[in-house]
């Protein structure tokens, strides 16, 4: 099996090219726009899957070389090129983006307002998300990174809940400020590369080479700048407040993308850019970052405990899980890094599923508050079943995807810092506590609502089953993903050894 020429570029640009078409045909027929978006996301997913299979079967999983590289000079006079490619890490993130985009677009059946615009923006969002994960030119990366904000802002601000404008602008300002801080760091390294290597370049690998030569103190400042930029996206705890608002106000399919893919951009940036660029600083700050990760896990866990809104609860559980990603990425240990990456993928699937379910409650029961949706098992058996699976996955039940990641990260954190960090295990307990409690109240609680409610409709069942199968599959057979992750994780962990 071989990849077609420029297949990665096609995966990247297909949704963007389809976006105006979705808009145009949507003005004629609303249904057409939806079907068109589904078909495009599906084709994109199939192409990405094909790339993934080629990647695996060609044995590229064992190599740190980029695959499917498309590289052209774009603006050579300032050193900007169109440079895309994937390694194992990027590959699974591309797969995750396309999987969740497909699920979310299928589950967008509750959107009835200006559908053509919705699907056009959605497809634009898909391109920008994939772009973040495949760009190896920092400028291109930054463009995609910023481009994500635009459709996301509109999707929240137009189709969101009652406080949507507030949530959208908060999201925009937080992440934009973060990316500007990040950009300053990029530019510093860019100047450094001009001075050290004598060339104008935004090529990530060249910049890494230049940045590695910086003095430790400079590295630390720049690392902190990058960490703030990426950390706001993750989000790390003092900068997390945009997330619950954005998640709660966004329409459910968009929450899926927010939690499933957008947050991963932060973790991806830390692992792909911040650590390789400033390994000395990362090593120096590892302990502090680990503490930030631990704070994330516990703080968000406790806050999640007393949430009454399902979406808010899931949002905080996201923050808690992202704490594990942050902790894992600085363990300096192959297993830890692999666990962090595994968590990014697994969390995308699990929280994607949970947010979709929250959307179902919102639209079928007209409420997301736990007391209102309690005890609906008899009326909505399928929804409840999926919620139980999602909840169990979220709390890290062995045999489901998140457990693998949690296990790896906690294990390697202990192996790096010793028993002083072993109390992180209680974070997992906390996770279990709020999740189980929520499941108990929602699924088995006393029924409050007497009105007639419908259970899942077909597109929802398809979309949810798809995610559930993946969650189970990754839980029982981790090598599927580990094959992709192992080599890049080793490469990232290497930076801590030097």
């Amino acid at each position, binding site marked *: 099996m071989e990849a077609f020429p420029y297949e990665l570029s096609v995966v990247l640009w297909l949704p963007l090219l389809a976006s105006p078409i979705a808009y145009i045909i949507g003005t004629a027929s609303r249904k057409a726009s939806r079907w068109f978006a589904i078909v495009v996301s599906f084709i994109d997913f199939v192409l990405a899957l094909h790339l993934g299979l080629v990647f695996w079967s060609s044995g590229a999983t064992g190599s740190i070389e980029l695959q499917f590289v498309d590289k052209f*000079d*774009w*603006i050579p*006079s*300032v050193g900007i090129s169109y440079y895309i490619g994937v390694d194992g890490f990027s590959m699974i993130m591309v797969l995750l983006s396309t999987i969740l985009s497909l699920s979310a677009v299928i589950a967008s059946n509750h959107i009835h307002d200006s559908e053509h615009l919705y699907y056009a923006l959605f497809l634009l969002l898909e391109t920008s998300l994939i772009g973040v994960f495949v760009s190896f030119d920092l400028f291109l990366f930054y*463009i995609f990174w910023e481009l994500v904000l635009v459709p996301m802002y509109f999707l929240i*601000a*137009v189709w969101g809940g009652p406080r949507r*404008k507030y949530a959208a602008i908060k999201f925009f300002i937080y992440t934009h400020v973060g990316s*500007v801080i990040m950009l300053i760091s990029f530019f510093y390294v860019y100047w450094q590369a001009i001075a050290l290597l004598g060339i104008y370049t935004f090529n990530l690998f060249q910049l890494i080479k230049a940045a590695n030569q910086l003095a430790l103190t400079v590295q630390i400042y720049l690392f902190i700048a990058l960490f703030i930029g990426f950390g706001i996206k993750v989000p790390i705890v003092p900068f997390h407040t945009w997330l619950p608002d954005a998640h709660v106000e966004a329409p459910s399919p968009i929450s899926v993308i927010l939690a499933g893919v957008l947050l991963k951009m932060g973790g991806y940036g830390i692992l792909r850019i911040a650590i390789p660029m400033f390994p000395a600083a990362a090593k120096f700050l590892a302990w502090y970052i680990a503490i930030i990760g631990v704070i994330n896990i516990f703080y968000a866990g406790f806050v999640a405990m007393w949430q009454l809104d399902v979406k808010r609860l899931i949002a905080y559980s996201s923050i808690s899980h992202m704490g594990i990603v942050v902790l894992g990425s600085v363990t300096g240990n192959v297993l830890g890094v692999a666990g962090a990456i595994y968590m990014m993928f697994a969390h995308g699937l699990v929280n994607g599923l949970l947010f979709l379910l929250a959307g179902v409650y919102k639209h079928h029961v007209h409420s997301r508050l736990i007391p209102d949706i309690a005890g609906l098992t008899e009326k909505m058996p399928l929804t409840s079943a999926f919620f139980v699976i999602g909840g169990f996955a979220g709390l890290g039940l062995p045999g489901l995807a998140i457990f693998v990641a949690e296990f790896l990260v906690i294990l390697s954190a202990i192996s790096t810092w010793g028993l002083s960090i072993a109390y992180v295990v209680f974070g997992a307990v906390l996770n279990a506590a709020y999740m189980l409690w929520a499941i108990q109240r929602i699924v088995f609680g006393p029924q409050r609502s007497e009105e007639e409610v419908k259970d899942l409709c077909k597109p929802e069942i398809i979309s949810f089953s798809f995610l559930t199968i993946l969650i189970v599959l990754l839980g029982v057979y981790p090598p599927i993903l580990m094959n992709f992750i192992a080599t890049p994780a080793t490469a990232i962990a290497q930076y801590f050894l030097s």
Partner: protein
Amino acid sequence: MLLPEIPYLPGIYTILGILALGVLILTILDRENYRWLISVLGELILLVTLAYVIDLPAYNESYIAFDEFSRFMTFVFIISSMLIIMALHHELRDVPRYGLAVSLILAANIGMIMAAASLNLVYIVVGWELAGVSSYAVVAVRRRDPLAIEAAMKFFIVGSIGFGLSLFGISFIFGAVGTFSLPDIAGKLANSKYEYNLLYTGLVLLISGLGFKMAIVPFHVWIPDTYDGAPNSIASFLAAASKSMAFAVGLRIFYHGLYPVSDIWSPLFAVLAIITMTYANLAALAQTKMKRLLAWSSIAHAGYIILLFGAYGLSQRLIAGGLFHIFMHAVMKILAFVAAAYITVVIGSDLLNDYAGIGRTQKIVSFFLTVDLLAMAGIPPLGGFWSKYLLFLGVVETGYVWLALIAVINSAISLYYYARIIKLMYFDVGKGSEATVAGPRIYLVPVILSGLLIMAVGIYPDPLINYLLKISP
């Protein structure tokens, strides 16, 4: 070779001659019912000029030079004028002497091209004043409108003071070095054969005079009133072409003649740049009328562009970035003013609050205006971003990192007032939501053309950047 070479009329005179002929023809044709003919002829004359501009081989005489710099600046003037005449055609439909307006624009072009191409202070001043007088008159083209007359008077008085100041300054410079020729001035200054006090006084006066034309704080007071009172397309002409000429003249004088004493003028410009962009960006935040906001944004952009002088140093990227931004600023301002003219027709008001909801009713114009506002704020990948990027890159290269940092912060502030318009257009509901009747189609032509230009340059700026990197004034 696009057009036959006219014997005995070398280089730039061909261009100036064609334009002068155009002025003559259009003045003769100045009749009410020849409106279409006048517009088409005006465009054609400019098109022929443009063909010559692209075609002419570069040459250099002692007092006038058609080098790549003049070629590029001429290109900017002519492209701007072509776009503006399309809008003028509709906007001045109530003005009886329309032919005069177009011919004045052509006359201004003669002056601007001459000023940009001259290597001699006297020639520069002559071209400058020709452009100036033509633009005073064209602002007053609506003779019965008191606002327009006020605008024109203000422009005329301030412009004359500015002109007088620079003339005064130039005479001081002549007194200091004993020559008007820029290359000779450079030679004398390099050998320190000059009177310091005379030179310094002359420089300060010259900078003030140029400052009026460039619209930098504190010489900016006329700008908001004049732009507000003039018809939109004329305002865009002032912002795009007339201002570009001032920068071209500045580049000529300071980079060609006065560079040996850059340690005198460069700090002055650095301070002016900081004051200009900060003050203008803060003032723009408080505006409620679109045209005034654009006026302030134009002042802020002048602040970025004079970094060319404030951060003087050996950097090709600085010059390329400056020229690029001059060009982009011209195109962006034309788009914005013409789009504002369109929207004013549609909603009957120029107040920003009345723009609310226009994004849903007037889709094309709102889309391009949004692109333009984002480009002015410097959002990648649009033309306005690359020009700003290259300019700031140059500023850092010459060692003024702090200056670049201030500029970047200012750029970030500006995003707020541009984004506010976008928010009003798309998210709010107001007068714009009811404006379902389409406006004059012809306004859309310059809007779409310049919008496409901004996007095209944004997506693939490399050829232009490479060309600009070879230019030195």
